[in-house]
């Protein structure tokens, strides 16, 4: 457990946290503006990954593939909003949960039908392979570093929109009040579709960035979605700032836990026991963290409503 190793894992945690934030921001925006709980958010993450893989293969260019993949996710997201989700804005959360659950089944199976069930891998262009030196004596995968940079840039952009623009004002005002929003002279339907599209694009970005690191397979969205829920619960729903703080905390805790819990436990209890208990505890760590946060702050760290 050398300091360099810890530093690398911290970076990994930051990278994971940044991806969690992209997902959490999209989810919390949609909930904050449209009062819609969208379980199919994970499916858009998956669509982002698959669309990009397909686009890369089709165009032969990584950059073109990424751009096309993002665009495709945006379009699919907006189509989903128009076709299936519009009717749900007026319904209660239970109905929204159930309907979007049905969408998950659809997306997962559709993707399996088109691409098969085995995991795909996304190839990286030459300039993203290899390593960079962050601090002397330690090299770090270039791609992961790029993910951190892009993620932080997008986060900054999001912050700017939320804090400085009129749209951001609506978001911060907790504008799930249609009457108020339309009184400001804004086309509600268009706004909602656009916001949903943004959320979809964020999810798609997270998905395509995840491609080279994790496996691209049906159901990948739900695995991260539940972790995104933990982020939102810890951070406080409706709050973009809470999503950022929660995402970084969850990302780092989860990554460090998986890396170091087993060896740490092995020093306390027998190595064979740690073999089982280590991974088990590590996978439960963020949920236990969530339970502790809830016990102290039932509405999360930065509740906005």
């Amino acid at each position: 457990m050398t300091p360099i190793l810890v530093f690398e894992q911290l970076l990994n945690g930051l990278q994971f946290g940044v991806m969690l934030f992209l997902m959490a921001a999209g989810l919390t925006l949609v909930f904050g503006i449209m009062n819609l709980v969208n379980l199919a958010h994970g499916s858009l993450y998956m669509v982002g990954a698959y669309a990009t893989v397909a686009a890369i293969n089709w165009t032969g260019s990584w950059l073109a593939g990424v751009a096309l993949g993002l665009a495709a996710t945006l379009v699919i997201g907006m189509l989903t909003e128009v076709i299936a989700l519009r009717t749900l804005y007026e319904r209660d959360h239970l109905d929204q949960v159930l309907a979007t659950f049905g969408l998950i089944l659809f997306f997962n199976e559709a993707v399996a039908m088109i691409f098969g069930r085995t995991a795909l891998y996304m190839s990286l262009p030459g300039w993203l392979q290899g390593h960079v030196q962050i601090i002397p004596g330690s090299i770090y995968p270039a791609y992961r570093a790029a993910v951190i940079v892009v993620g932080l840039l997008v986060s900054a952009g999001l912050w700017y929109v939320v804090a400085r623009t009129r749209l951001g004002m609506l978001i911060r005002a907790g504008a799930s009040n249609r009457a108020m929003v339309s009184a400001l002279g804004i086309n509600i339907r268009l706004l909602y579709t656009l916001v949903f599209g943004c959320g979809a694009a964020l999810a798609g970005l997270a998905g395509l960035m995840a491609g080279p690191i994790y496996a691209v397979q049906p159901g990948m969205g739900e695995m991260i979605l539940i972790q995104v829920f933990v982020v939102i619960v810890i951070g406080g729903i409706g709050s973009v700032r809470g999503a950022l703080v929660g995402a970084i905390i969850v990302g780092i805790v989860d990554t460090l836990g998986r890396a170091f819990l087993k060896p740490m436990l092995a020093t306390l209890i027998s190595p064979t026991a740690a073999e089982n208990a280590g991974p088990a505890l590590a996978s439960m760590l963020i949920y236990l963290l969530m339970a502790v946060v809830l016990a102290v702050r039932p509405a999360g760290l930065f509740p906005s409503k």
Partner: protein
Amino acid sequence: MRKELVFWFVFAALLAFLPPVMNAVGQPYYIDLVRRIMILAIAAVSLNLILGYGGLVSFGHAAYLGVGAYAVGILAFYGVTNGWLQFATAIVASALVAAAIGSISIRTSGIYFIMITLAFTQMLYYLGISIAEFGGDDGMRLKARSQFPLIDLGDPVASYYVALAFMLASVYLVYWIVNTRFGMALRASKSNEARTRAVGISPYPYRLAAFVIAGALCGLAGALYANHTNYLTPGFMTWQQSGELMFMVILGGMASTAGPVLGSFALLLLEEVLKGWTEHWQVILGPLLVLSVILFRRGLAGIFYKPDA
């Protein structure tokens, strides 16, 4: 009230006659199918208590199927096959887990509650995966079925009638609970929470108690399920299974006695039909579920009789 009793009598009779009929026409597969549906119906009935009557949108109810099943499986693994002991452990373990999860979750509400129950169940799922002794991801075979005097759970027909009996008993149990003072307080909390506090009733203890009861009942279903499948995996505790349970409650009509049972039969038979058509049956089921949410409000029970208050 009359119509309801008639319905149950006819329904129970039909189910009771199914095994001999299926054996006679040489289709014993349907005995297994309906047994599975009835066991999951028990889980749906338990969920209906807190979801339909209590208004708690618990997206993690499948956890107790898992806890119950693993209680049976783990005891059998270590050579304890006494059915009474296994089932009692399944029920008590589920109740304890429900108490732990519920005490934290029920302090929250709305979307938080949905996410938190989902997250805790996922945590249990990961716990199940990571314990290699009990099969981890792949799960494990049941070493031996639960042993009860006189009843062999390995016999398809005997276990069918056991499942039928438990299903009817659980339906009656929930029916009885919701009509007691306890049940009325629970239903009142769902109907108008502010008003309920204003008359001096605090919803929290009622909701927590109902959550524990529902968990325990679902644990019983889990114990039966392990005996039915003869195999247990963490897959019993996935969010997909939780979602399926929720649909069984909603489709049938919440807050009614027959609702969750009808919903279970409807959904699981539909899945069976779709599975027969294509291996990609979920791509059809998904949109159907979405449509059902968008279009239907009262559920199936409303067709047979007016749900009793």
